[in-house]
């Protein structure tokens, strides 16, 4: 997908004017957080598990080169191949090369954010190989030629009626008068349509939630069963994964799995958790003859050793999106690329550059909810601030923005000047706002007062009250 991150402000405005999207986002904002909370209530050890999961990933990232070498050697021992790809282009070409070697016409695909990141579908199609998304949400958005709007619920922005329209347009072989009122009939139609594709695909392309160094295994975490039909039926299984997915042992994986689904969908564990190691064995009755892993960098090594390294702990559970007031207001498409929400606002500038995605880290209230719910304890607000600093350093903000920040800094660093300027201002606001208690409009503050009122100041400032001394409670003790 071509990045649209520069259109963020316009995208966000359009998204907020979309009533249907607002309904979908309300459903998401009410559903996922509630289910997460219920799942965590059933697991008193959840916070201990988060600490353990964080420690596992921190250790892995500090030894990433060594674990990648170990992982590669184990994949080879099992008869598989590892292809190290520096860029999305390298990865696309390698995947096409494997498809061509086996004369593949169709490729079934289970949901992969790395597949979205490198836009593999468009590339295969341009080169005469038909990619077929099999996750229901991904299938729907592939038919609509849309990017995912959520990392674990790609079609969450759509309603049932839109899915019905999409199916009627795509499945022209079926009776146009068929009844699709019941969502179950949509599911059944997708099941039947995709069943044939599973049985006849030449190559199965999956992502990976983890790559286990101990055994050379890729882990797939799904609910529908499409991933399992994707890797078990075709002759070739290609795994596309970014390199930070590596994890040392099976025990480490068990720990991280305990926090993954609970944080995302609120399930204790997803329906299918699958561990694939190499191609089918000589006497196996099914499974692929060839097993390839596309190990993608695409800018991640550049984050190692920087203040953004902790972002590489992310396990893509979606919890930060599910709890983010900004995501709830604008949805995923507004962010302009395949990732969105707080993790997207940190990761996207890391992968494509802050000059391309400068608006994203600024689209945050820094309320901190994302860090509170992150199973890997990633300090997302701290990193959003770090991107803002970098943007300022490289003069990426507008002239007006820089000017007002400088003015603010000059005031904030001089307490006496600050009080001399803000004191009369607050007094004036208090006087003018005395009648209504709030302002519907203020000069130079239209951005704030547009969607809401500004409360008028009440009484003295904190500093003024502080200097007056304690009222009731002791706030400062002197000379004791």
């Amino acid at each position, binding site marked *: 997908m071509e990045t649209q991150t520069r259109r963020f402000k316009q995208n966000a405005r359009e998204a907020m004017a979309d009533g249907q999207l607002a309904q979908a986002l309300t459903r998401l904002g009410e559903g996922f957080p509630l289910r997460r909370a219920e799942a965590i209530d059933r697991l008193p050890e959840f916070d201990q598990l988060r600490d353990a999961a964080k420690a596992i990933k921190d*250790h892995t990232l500090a030894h990433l080169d060594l674990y990648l070498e170990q992982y590669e050697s184990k994949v080879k021992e099992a008869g598989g191949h590892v292809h*190290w790809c520096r860029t999305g282009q390298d990865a696309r070409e390698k995947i096409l090369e494997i498809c061509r070697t086996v004369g593949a016409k169709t490729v079934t695909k289970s949901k992969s954010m790395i597949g979205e990141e490198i836009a593999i579908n468009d590339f295969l199609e341009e080169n005469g190989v038909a990619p077929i998304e099999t996750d229901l949400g991904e299938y729907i958005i592939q038919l609509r030629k849309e990017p995912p709007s959520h990392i674990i619920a790609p079609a969450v922005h759509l309603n049932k009626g839109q899915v019905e329209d999409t199916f009627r347009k795509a499945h022209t072989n079926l009776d146009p008068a068929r009844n699709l009122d019941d969502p179950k009939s949509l599911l059944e139609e997708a099941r039947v349509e995709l069943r044939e594709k599973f049985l006849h695909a030449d190559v199965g392309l999956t992502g990976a939630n983890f790559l286990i160094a101990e055994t050379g295994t890729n882990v797939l975490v799904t609910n529908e069963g499409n991933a399992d039909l994707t890797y078990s*039926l075709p002759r070739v299984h290609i795994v596309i994964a970014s390199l930070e997915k590596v994890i040392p042992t099976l025990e480490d994986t068990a720990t991280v799995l305990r926090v993954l689904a609970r944080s995302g969908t609120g399930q204790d564990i997803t329906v299918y958790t*699958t561990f694939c190691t190499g191609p089918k064995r000589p006497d196996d009755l099914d*499974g692929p003859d060839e097993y390839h892993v596309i190990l993608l960098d695409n800018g991640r090594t550049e984050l190692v050793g920087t203040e953004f390294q902790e972002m590489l702990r992310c396990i893509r559970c979606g919890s930060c999106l599910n709890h983010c007031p900004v995501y709830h207001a604008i949805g995923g498409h507004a962010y302009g690329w395949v990732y969105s929400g707080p993790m997207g606002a940190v990761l996207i500038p890391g992968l494509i550059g802050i000059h391309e995605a400068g608006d994203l880290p600024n689209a945050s209230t820094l309320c901190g909810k994302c860090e509170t719910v992150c199973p890997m304890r990633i300090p997302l607000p701290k990193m959003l601030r770090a991107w803002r600093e970098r943007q300022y350093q490289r003069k990426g903000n507008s002239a007006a923005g820089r000017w007002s920040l400088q003015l603010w800094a000059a005031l904030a660093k001089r307490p006496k000047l600050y009080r001399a300027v803000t004191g009369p201002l607050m007094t004036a606001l208090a006087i003018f706002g005395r009648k209504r208690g709030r302002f519907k409009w203020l000069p130079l503050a239209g951005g704030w007062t547009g969607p809401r009122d500004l409360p008028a100041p009440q009484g003295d400032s904190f500093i003024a009250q502080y200097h007056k001394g304690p009222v009731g409670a002791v706030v400062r003790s002197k000379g004791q």
Partner: protein
Amino acid sequence: MSGREQILGDLRAALTQSNDGARRAAVAKRLMTKARHVIPARGKDAGPAATDRFQAEAERVQATVARVASLDDLPGAVADYLAAQNMPAAVRMTPDPRLRAAPWDTTAITIAEGPAQGEDTAGVSHAFGAVAETGSLVFLSGPESPTTVNFLPPVHIAVLRASDISGCFEDIWSRLRADRQNAEGAGRFMPRTVNWITGPSRTADIELVLFLGIHGPKHLHIVIVDDGDDGGQTG
């Protein structure tokens, strides 16, 4: 320079401020010790308690569970289930010797062996084990256990010995390492595929409403065989 050398070179440049020998030793130790981390209390059951928890957790995620006293009762339990679901008396079965040994000729069920085909209506396979913590079944691929039987037919009937139910995921890994030491060559114990299955297939991709049975089985029926060994699997 190849992608591999570039990537590893960049990572080393960013990470190797400290002693490289110490880093290698830390990695070797971790891979050797395979340390367990936090095991939740609900993953520490064994014996009958583990079996009960497994059943409760599996039913919580919409699997159905039947218990039989021995493998002799398995064909009857399968026949009853298929009849209750109004399904044809035909199954695709993995060529597992334990399943084959059951007295299928006492029923009218037609059995086909081998990997699943698109037209199969029900699959029967034998689990390697199960995890009480989450109600998950564990299957291994192999010559006697083709993976597709667990996924392609719309109904999956899983046979599980009570003595194979573990408390937690880690117990399954310990058992796998012990049972299959070098099964795949020196030091290699992982089969092509290990599948943890927790309930029937589902999706909430349309308006976040949960529906069962999209690509995988619509029904998961678990037959627990009480094989008398209630020692359970503990770590």
